[in-house]
């Protein structure tokens, strides 16, 4: 009799807890994949497609699903790989491409024919212009993705590395000078 009571109590407990869990899973359901958002926050949002995915979000989704390596994003650099590895608990791998300094695209005003092809290619709408009018790149919005280079029929766009200026200059890490201790000569 005791054993039956125990089983009944356990069964009741299981039913109650199961119902509670079931309710909670519906009530507190998380929309979307929070991991994708976390990965996307690390990616530089260049939207350059150098990883082989059409934008940063698809790449983040692929990483979250485990379909993509974490070292495919050249603009994110080694620091990005490191942070992704920390987030996902994966192994740090060397970057699958050359790490480049941050750059912006510049249109040569004398060569531009106003064909609007680069405007269509720009993923972040950082190029202004109209048909047969000179196009201009908004330097602050340019992510340096280089997607405007191939469509240009007259090759009037070139990339320029972002140089340090007074506004974006950073204090350097204080260097600790290490000097060799004077060698004591045996007396």
């Amino acid at each position, binding site marked *: 009799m005791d054993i039956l009571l125990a089983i009944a109590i356990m069964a009741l407990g299981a039913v109650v807890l199961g119902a509670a869990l079931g309710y909670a899973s519906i009530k507190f359901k998380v929309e979307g994949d929070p991991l994708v958002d976390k990965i*996307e926050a690390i*990616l*530089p*949002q*260049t*939207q350059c497609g150098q990883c082989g995915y059409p*934008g*940063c979000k698809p790449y983040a989704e692929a990483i979250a699903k485990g379909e993509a390596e974490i070292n495919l994003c050249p603009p994110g650099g080694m620091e990005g790989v490191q942070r992704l590895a920390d987030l996902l608990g994966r192994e740090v791998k060397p970057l699958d491409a050359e790490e480049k300094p941050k750059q912006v695209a510049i249109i040569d005003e004398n060569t531009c024919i106003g064909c609007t092809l680069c405007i269509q290619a720009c*993923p*972040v*709408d*950082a190029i202004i212009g109209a048909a047969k009018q000179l196009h201009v790149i908004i330097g*602050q*919005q340019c*992510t340096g993705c280089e997607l405007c280079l191939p469509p240009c029929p007259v090759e009037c766009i070139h990339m320029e590395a972002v140089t*340090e*200026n*007074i506004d*974006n*200059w*950073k*204090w*350097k*890490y*204080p260097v*600790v*000078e290490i*000097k060799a201790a004077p060698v004591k000569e045996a007396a």
Partner: protein
Amino acid sequence: MLMNLFKFKGGVKPPTNKTQSLGRPIAQAPIPSRLVVPLHQSIGGTPRPVVQAGDKVLKGQLIGEADGWISAAVHAPTSGTVVDVAMHVQPHPSGLDALCVVIEPDGKDEWIPREPVDYKALTPEQVRERLQQAGVVGLGGAVFPTHGKLTASKTVPMEEMVINGAECEPFITCDDLLMRERAEEVVRGAGIFRDLLQPKKVLIGIEDNKPEAAAAMRAAVQAVGETFEVIQVPTLYPAGGAKQLIRVLTGKEVPAAKRSTDLGVQCFNVATAYTAWRAIAHGEPVVSRLVTVTGNVHEPRNYEVLIGTPMDELLKLATPHPDTDGIVMGGPMMGFLVPDPKVPVVKATNCLIAHSDRLFPPKAPEMPCIRCGACAQACPHELQPFEMYWFSRAKNFGKTQEYHIFDCIECGCCSFVCPSRIPLVQYFRFAKSEIWAREREKNAADQAKERFEFKQLREEREKAEKAEKLAKAAAAQAAKKAAEAAAAAASGDTPAEAPGPASAETATTPAAPSAADAEKAAKLATIQAAMERAKAQREAAQPKNTEQLTPEQQRAADEIEARRVAAKLVEPVASANPANEKAE
């Protein structure tokens, strides 16, 4: 005048070294051979240059127009010719270049027509605008545009206005000399600020190692007939920090991420008050400032210097000793070695110290932190520098922010007392600029993401709109053509079926459900419209001479027609339109 003074925690007492440069009155520095006037001399937007190479300018003429509200205009310091508007090295620890206007003086020092005004006849807005146009900025070192500080908070009543004459940093005496020699104009300038802000009290704080300045200010306050209180505060570095002086004089502690106006206090430097008075009552924009030239020189002295004067030319006036190997801009606590002796004097330059190893012996090497806590005791902001150091060094920037690194005013007290000679402030500057850089990157990434998503959204929307428009146009055209065809068929002899209405229906009905369908339907409709047209043309082009044929002719024609049908060159007339069926 007895008044209860408050105290701030921490602080240090470095040797003041002020007497050297106090012996002589202010001297006018001669016009240098060439002036390099940086456009960006204050916090806020970089002024836009309004002159170009070859322009003749007069003293006080506008050369850089304020860009935005928090920005101040820049003026030609003397008359002459603009020889260049180009990048030149700046008095900035980075040693990087920024846009400057280079002026070759003509030696006449000819002013623009100056327009003195009675500010009491102007509205507060007009006064603020005049100050902005005259390039009046905080001359205590932070160079914040003064007009931006002259709007009282709407919710908090203005209690006290503090005029900062503390000048706590060693070696610097320019504010001291200014108060001794030009006290009346300082008081009148403070009067302008008072009238704009309407505080209940005006407190002038002066460190008690400047009794002459305090006496001169008291006399000036009486002479002008104001009710300002001149208060001598204990000499303790950094009593001249705005938050520290406010604390000492009013007992109010300005919390992190809040401004003093939120507590009903505002603070101005004495030199700022002086330039404000010159700007309003004399119509003279800020083209010069007082600079203490001291350190490793024969004749330390204060000079009235034109903005843009190369520092090496200024230093020569005080005849530096031969072992001088650099110039420190600012004091020994917060100043920095300028990257090039030719950099110009700017509005933020209050002091030049000729550097030599004799005067400032090189620091012994840094030792490990022993966590003695001396820095925490010295910190005037009650921070824990040893913790911030630890995390800055480890590049754990989140933690440095938890320890309120952005409340650090970089006064250097912690580095001054550190027994291990750790350059703590350098670590904090490194951490701060690194955090700012990350913030910038994060904002840029967020913006790029937003723009990318918007572009995708827009492209999709445009596609849908285009498809819809196309479908509508095609449908309309098809209907029109069908009607024409029907009309043509009706007028012609051969009775033809009229597919018009049916085709119009097929084109219009699927346009509604979705964009993809609409697109498909639009394409189909176009194809169909073209076919209708072709058919109508064919029908319209039917030869009219087929009516009176001989039976042979008719037979021959029929045979030819049959062959053509057999060769699939034409469709049999009676067959239904395949496109029409497909669309349905």
